[in-house]
């Protein structure tokens, strides 16, 4: 049976973060539906931007130097329940209204009276926004410092653990933004959204930022059609294995003579080579049905250098952008086919990094012409990088509409993936019927986390919004749900459960 009580009922019951509620069995999604013969998949897509702009209410903007008061641009500025109207950021999801649920009004707890690390409540955020929000948002675990480290396993990796050994690839962790783009700085932790068991910096999972390599890693194991092609493929695969064997054979010879610290370092390296060989040695995936080798994406778009300008007026084209649009589309294609071919059941796509300084101009200028995006009726191209836009770097174009436009671009990749999954038949339905696809932005819009007093701020863990698409585990999407200040990890737990997770918690947060 599909669930009888919708998710709203659960979320409305949430009084706060670490509260554990006794749930009736009927409230949980039916996990082992007899009709379900395909495995459940789980993916999370991440946008390193806020939902609004500093000091602008959800219906306020400044366009071409003129103040505008107009609703429908804040992502959740729409009615609750089914049949809600799509807001500007959600426009790429047109026609998919019944495929995703939006949960808004989510909040991560924090200690308004103390900014001390030891005072952070359970599942709460350390009061330095960018670094402090990461751990509770993605792992449900409290952060006690400004460093970008999740202190617990992240939701995608819970599903990866669950399916360990059942697919060739444990998980697919990819990132579209390859560089930090700020002169003199580097990512310093902002490039991780997936963490393995236990969390912490040692458990961070390095994302593959090259679409070309990700493609190769997923799809070079497929045996081509035709005898001669197959014979050449066989030769190449044997050669590839021989090369890796040769490297692995010297493992003991090299490692045994080293000190312990070096042993650990190199053992980790050799372990990864061994895992690569195991993936190559795994039975070749079955091409057939809907599973096919996607088109080779070819060489990656060039990686853009750091910004040539330092702010909205001088961040110009040609720097700070590596065609993240194309990169995100390729990664979405790869996630789609990896799911269809059951190469993996867990994926994460970081479209933009935490505190992303990606040049916003190519997106802003292309909105409406970039595939899948729509130009808001009132729109003037906005200057600056993604982070500066949130902080009103462009004096003439700021507030809700610019932010909504850029968020819409992020969501266009989410919509693209969902549309592909639902267009691919599987087990009497489609792949989306057996998937859970989550979208989250880095921030909400409301009380500032840092000073705990300013309103309408981007550095906020209030009014957070998550999207969850798919029908795995009997989910019944199509609603706008008021989260009533529930912790965002509760949405992740619901999604994880729908994807087969038997537990009811993530980090400090329990359903």
């Amino acid at each position, binding site marked *: 049976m599909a669930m009888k009580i919708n998710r709203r009922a659960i979320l409305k019951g949430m009084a706060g973060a670490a509260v554990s509620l006794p749930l009736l069995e009927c409230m949980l999604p039916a996990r082992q539906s007899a009709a379900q013969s395909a495995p459940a998949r789980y993916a999370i897509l991440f946008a390193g931007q806020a939902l609004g702009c500093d000091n602008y209410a959800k219906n306020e903007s400044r366009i071409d130097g003129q103040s505008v008061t107009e609703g429908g641009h804040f992502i959740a500025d729409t009615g609750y329940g089914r049949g809600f109207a799509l807001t500007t950021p959600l426009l790429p999801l047109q026609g998919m209204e019944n495929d995703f649920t939006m949960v808004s009004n989510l909040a991560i707890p924090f200690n308004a009276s103390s900014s001390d690390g030891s005072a952070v409540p359970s599942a709460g955020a350390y009061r330095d926004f960018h670094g402090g929000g990461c751990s509770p948002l993605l792992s449900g675990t409290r952060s006690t410092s400004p460093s970008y480290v999740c202190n617990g396993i992240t939701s995608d990796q819970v599903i990866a653990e669950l399916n360990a050994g059942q697919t060739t690839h444990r998980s697919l962790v990819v990132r579209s933004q390859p560089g930090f783009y700020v002169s*003199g700085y580097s*990512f310093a932790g902002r490039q991780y959204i997936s963490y393995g068991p236990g969390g912490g910096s040692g458990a961070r999972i390095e994302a593959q930022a*090259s679409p070309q390599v990700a493609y190769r890693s997923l799809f070079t194991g497929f045996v081509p059609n035709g005898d001669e092609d197959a014979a050449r493929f066989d030769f190449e695969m044997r050669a590839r294995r021989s090369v890796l064997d040769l*490297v692995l054979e010297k493992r003991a010879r090299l490692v045994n003579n*080293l000190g312990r610290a*070096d042993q650990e370092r190199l053992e980790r390296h050799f372990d990864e080579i061994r895992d690569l060989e195991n993936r190559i040695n795994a039975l070749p995936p079955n091409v057939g049905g809907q599973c096919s080798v996607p088109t080779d994406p070819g060489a990656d778009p060039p990686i853009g250098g750091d910004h040539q300008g330092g702010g909205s007026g001088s961040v110009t084209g040609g720097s700070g952008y590596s065609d993240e649009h194309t990169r995100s589309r390729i990664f979405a294609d790869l996630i789609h086919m990896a799911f269809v071919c059951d190469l993996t059941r867990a994926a994460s796509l970081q479209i933009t990094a935490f505190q992303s300084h990606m040049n916003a101009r190519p997106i802003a200028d292309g909105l409406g012409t970039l595939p899948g995006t729509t130009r808001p009726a009132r729109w003037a191209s906005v200057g600056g990088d993604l982070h500066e836009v949130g902080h009103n770097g462009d004096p003439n174009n700021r507030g809700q509409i610019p932010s909504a436009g850029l968020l819409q671009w992020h969501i266009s990749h989410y919509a693209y993936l969902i549309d592909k999954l639902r267009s691919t038949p599987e087990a009497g339905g489609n792949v989306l019927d057996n998937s859970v696809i989550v979208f989250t932005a880095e921030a909400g819009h409301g009380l500032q986390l840092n000073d705990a007093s300013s309103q309408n701020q981007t550095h906020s863990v209030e009014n957070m919004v998550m999207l969850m698409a798919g029908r795995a585990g009997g989910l019944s999407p199509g609603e706008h749900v008021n989260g009533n200040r529930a912790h965002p990890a509760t949405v992740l737990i619901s999604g994880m459960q729908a994807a087969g997770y038997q537990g009811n918690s993530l980090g400090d947060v329990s359903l």
Partner: protein
Amino acid sequence: MFSRVAGVVALASLVSCSGQIGRSTDSGPPAVDPILAVESGARRLSQAELDNTLRDLLGEDSAPAARLLNEDEFRPFDNDYTIQQASEALITSLEALAEEVAERAIGDAGRRAELVPCTPTGGGDEQCFRAFLDSFLSRALRREVTAQDIDAYMPLLAFASEDNAAVDNDFYTAAQLAVTAALQDPEFLYRVEQGTPGNTPGLLELDGYEIASRMSYLLWASMPDEALFAAAGAGSLESPQGRRTEALRMLGDPKARNQLHRFHSMWLGYRSIPHSPELVAAFNRETSALIDRVILDEPGSYLRLFTMDETFVDDSLADHYGLPRPPDGEGWVSYEGTGRAGILGHGSLLAAFSKFEDTSPTQRGILVRTRFMCENVPRPPPNVDADQPPQGAMDAVCKYERYAEHRDQSSSCASCHSLVDPIGFGLENYDVAGRYREHDDGLPECVIEGSGEIVDVGNFSGPAELSRLLVDNDYVDACAVQQFLTFALGRPASSYEQELLQEMVESFRSGQHDFKAFIVDFIASERFARRAQERL
């Protein structure tokens, strides 16, 4: 005033505002006195080192590592091995890189001829394959190879002679596979040092090849060349004099210049600055010319890097600064009457650490404290949102007034900001592109006073006077040595290595700040040819 005690003693203890100071990662005293031998661990080549090595090993000039591997963290150098961690993403990228690079190297007849020292008689020419492996693997693994090493690669030759209608295989098929394998070999990707135990417990003596790699990656960010390998093979690098001779030779190579430029650009924070490519190139030529001159071309006091009274410009850069044009379109012009001196007068440095599209007095103060004085500046407290420029009072227009809250002694801000902001305000007459200005950009009413202070050290106005304070109070020489040691070790010095640092600073000073001699002495020192095992 404690200015004369500045230097290493003050490095870890100056900051008086609250905040964590120094590293806390030390896991206990090392087994060997760092004066005798310093701990070292296996270091994976950084993106830049890998690309340089592929260039020198295979003639590969497309910088594939920058394309296919994830960006290195700069702390401030790109080579901190303590944060390197192998991952699935790394391994899959390395395999792709190895295949791509090997295919290009062997597929190109010219490059192939450089690598294979014989003409194969056929696909299964074992003798030629052995000869190829002997020469190629010893360069790739940066050591003499053994029969065991070569034997391990021999099975690849079967792919050359396999009778298979589907593939067009020959001798070079096997050679390409051998290159692919070598590029994925941890001995190629990492600088793995072992050494042999000597008389002192825990102290390990490096062999000539291990020393050669230390030298080449320090001086060139790349692998040893033929002459250095020959010196390693002859055993001459095991003696201080042998290392001295080779180091001097290596410093004459253009690769050494590039490495010195790279070191300074990472250390002093100008490796990537927010200006047009043309302006950035002009700034880099200017700064590189000064580095070359004070270290290599006119060896003498390195302190001239900070005090030089002239600068290297072309006509357009001279116009940009408002300096007289040089004769012949490019050359050195005097700084006289400009308030500038040395590298702090350059657009490269004045553009570094900008914020909010303008100079940031706070960030420039942090630049000077952390990179020129080697002090730690604590992060702002969590309840401060440093993503927003300071606003000051409601009607504040001028920048100095907008930063008033940083000076408010009744607030918690002043204790830290008083250490950094006054330094930055002393440079405010120089804009984000290094041009002189009288007032805030676009605000004639906001006249810039331009006076600055290093608290408890002295007052100054402009780059020349600031540089003078930093030099006269023994900050920059001590800091340069500390940064150099961090770069050379691939990690910051630990608290147990402060005595070593102090000794190096003293030797730099007693050598009249000759940086070239200092580098050569560093390499010639006994400890350069030794290591100690890392503690866990």
